[in-house]
């Protein structure tokens, strides 16, 4: 036991005495061999302890007064000691910062690389002023923002619902946003500036879809995973019908653009102000979700335990649903209803980092951006070879995501049968 924790316990435990925890006779580990788990904890009476030993009973609120306010000087020395063993695997501020910087550098490098790759060549000397490069950079930035938004929304919803099958597309939130986007465009010029109008309509659509799915699947205060997916199927069918109705009402000259949008394709030229607004919304939702990461972790232990840990569960639920709807709306306003990004990315991140939501939420944003940048570049690159001109990125994510979803579902069945 380090001196730091020893003094900490001396402070906390008023009556100083020896603590000892011993493995009982016959304790065995999983392999069946006897365990010598003799983590004996001794708290000897140190000077700090004696000073407080007269206080037999703690005053009311001793916990509050004691803990965060003053830090024993000795702890500072302990902090500088090698701490890899103490903090192994835990997301401390420094470790998260390193991981975020590494992920950001990787994303930026991929972005820089992909802006130079494509069917059209770029003037090598002054590439930054080449219009092909600028259009491509805008499109890839939009892809990154959309991917980050969907992945963060997926990670937050999975955490909130304690359900690894949660995803803004599967639950119908993305198609709701899609109805909003097309309704906004169908209303024409009077509804205002496109950069605000499109995400605003998408947000309303996403929120309506999220609320209805949740209301349908909720039973006695609990949200059953499979009811949720069924509710998502129903809402997706309804939204699909609404989008088709809007398709019929579209100007015949814009029918091709509509069809490509509905498959999940980024426009050739992204509106810069739309990109700025939607990118900002994604960043805001990402930061808001990250702030609630600890609460989402606690929610994993059940509503009651989360409440006892100080999490306002009802308010958290509303906040996460609204934030996810916002991120999804921004993504759909940019890229159309791109499927399964929100399902796949958090899972892959969780496999790599473990389930702590601080990590999952932080890194899923970058993961979604990386996936969408790579998928968009791939679609643009292979499209001409297939004689298709360009392929919608939503096609590729659907081809990847559907088997992924089936594999997850099968694994869940296997776990439940075990």
């Amino acid at each position, binding site marked *: 036991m380090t001196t730091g924790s020893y003094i900490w316990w001396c402070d906390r435990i008023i009556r100083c005495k020896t603590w000892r925890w011993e493995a009982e006779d016959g304790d065995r580990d999983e392999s069946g061999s006897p365990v010598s788990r003799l983590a004996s904890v001794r708290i000897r009476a140190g000077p700090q302890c004696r000073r407080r030993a007269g206080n037999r009973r703690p005053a009311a609120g001793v916990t509050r007064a004691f803990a965060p306010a003053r830090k024993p000087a000795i702890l500072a020395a302990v902090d500088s000691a090698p701490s890899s063993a103490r903090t192994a695997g835990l997301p401390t501020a420094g470790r998260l910062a390193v991981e975020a910087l590494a992920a950001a550098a990787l994303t930026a490098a991929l972005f820089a690389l992909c802006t130079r790759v494509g069917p059209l060549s770029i003037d090598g000397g002054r590439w930054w002023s080449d219009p092909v490069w600028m259009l491509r950079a805008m499109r890839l930035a939009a892809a990154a923002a959309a991917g980050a938004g969907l992945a963060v929304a997926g990670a937050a919803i999975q955490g909130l619902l304690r359900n690894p099958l949660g995803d803004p597309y599967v639950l119908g939130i993305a198609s709701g946003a899609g109805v909003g986007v097309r309704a906004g465009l169908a209303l024409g010029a009077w509804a205002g500036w496109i950069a605000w109008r499109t995400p605003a309509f998408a947000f309303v659509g996403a929120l309506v879809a999220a609320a209805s799915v949740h209301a349908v699947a909720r039973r006695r205060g609990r949200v059953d995973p499979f009811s949720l997916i069924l509710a998502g199927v129903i809402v997706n069918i309804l939204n699909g019908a609404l989008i088709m109705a809007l398709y019929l009402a579209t100007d015949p000259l814009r029918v091709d653009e509509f069809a490509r949008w509905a498959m999940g394709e980024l426009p050739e030229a992204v509106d810069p102000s739309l990109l700025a607004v939607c990118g900002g919304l994604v960043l805001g939702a990402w930061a808001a979700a990250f*702030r609630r990461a600890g609460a989402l972790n606690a929610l994993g232990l059940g509503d009651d335990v989360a409440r006892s840990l100080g999490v306002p569960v009802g308010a958290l639920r509303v906040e996460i649903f609204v934030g996810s709807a916002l991120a999804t709306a921004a993504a759909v306003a940019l890229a159309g209803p791109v499927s399964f990004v929100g399902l796949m990315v958090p899972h892959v991140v969780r496999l790599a980092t473990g389930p702590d939501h601080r990590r999952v939420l932080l890194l899923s944003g970058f993961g979604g951006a990386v996936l969408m940048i790579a998928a968009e570049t791939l679609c643009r690159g292979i499209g001409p070879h297939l004689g298709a001109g360009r392929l919608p990125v939503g096609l590729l994510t659907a081809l990847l995501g559907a088997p992924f979803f089936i594999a997850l579902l099968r694994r869940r069945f296997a776990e439940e049968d075990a």
Partner: protein
Amino acid sequence: MNAAISARGLAFAYRPAEPVLRGVDLDARAGELVCILGPNGGGKTTLLRCLLGLAAPSGGTVTIDGRPLAGLRARERARRLAYVPQTPGSAFAFSAREIVLMGRLSHLGALGLAGAQDLEIVRAAMEMTGTEALAGRTLDELSGGEAQRVMIARALAQQPTILLLDEPTSHLDLRQQGSVTSMLRRVAHDWPMAVLCVSHDLNVAAAFADRLVLVAGGRIAADGPPADVLRPDLLREVYGIDVDLVPRPGSGPPLVVARVPA
């Protein structure tokens, strides 16, 4: 007596016609291990939920360290009251150390990131509960008793003054029951902390609690040291069954044995 947690005239009803609690008075001091016993449906779990602030009582008050529970903000409440549920469970594959770190949630800053002191407290809580060797394992990889000890370590990391547990030993075998109950005794007496357990096993509770509280029909039927509460007449009245008391081998309060109808 300066009570860490105290309830006065506590009433609760899911439906107005069927009150579950009808005026419960209960006090617990720091350094005291109290077991709440009683027949199924008698209101003991509801009482625990009211004491925790998970259920809003329809009448009466709960005070924590002299302050009304209803007036505490969620974070303040979490720094005073910790709760261990009946069955430990986690939706995600958190390691034991990550679960214990969750106990620090109400002490963390705006970004929710753990500092060096939080990690020390986590480590000390795990040492105290003998769960250090389990730090990297997930709940699924632990036995029932080990998982329960991890959940208790998580509660201790909250640095509460009051610890409430719902049937902490009901799923455990004899040896694990012993390890959890002796740990709870140490926490209650040496921290010192007020520990309240809901339990249905009279004999286990009598062996490790300082005080037994018998809840039946939404009221306190008896409250006192085990020897005073375990009376055949009282138990017959509360449980509606004849019981015999036999001396416990060694020492301690007598054992309650239900008479099997012939």
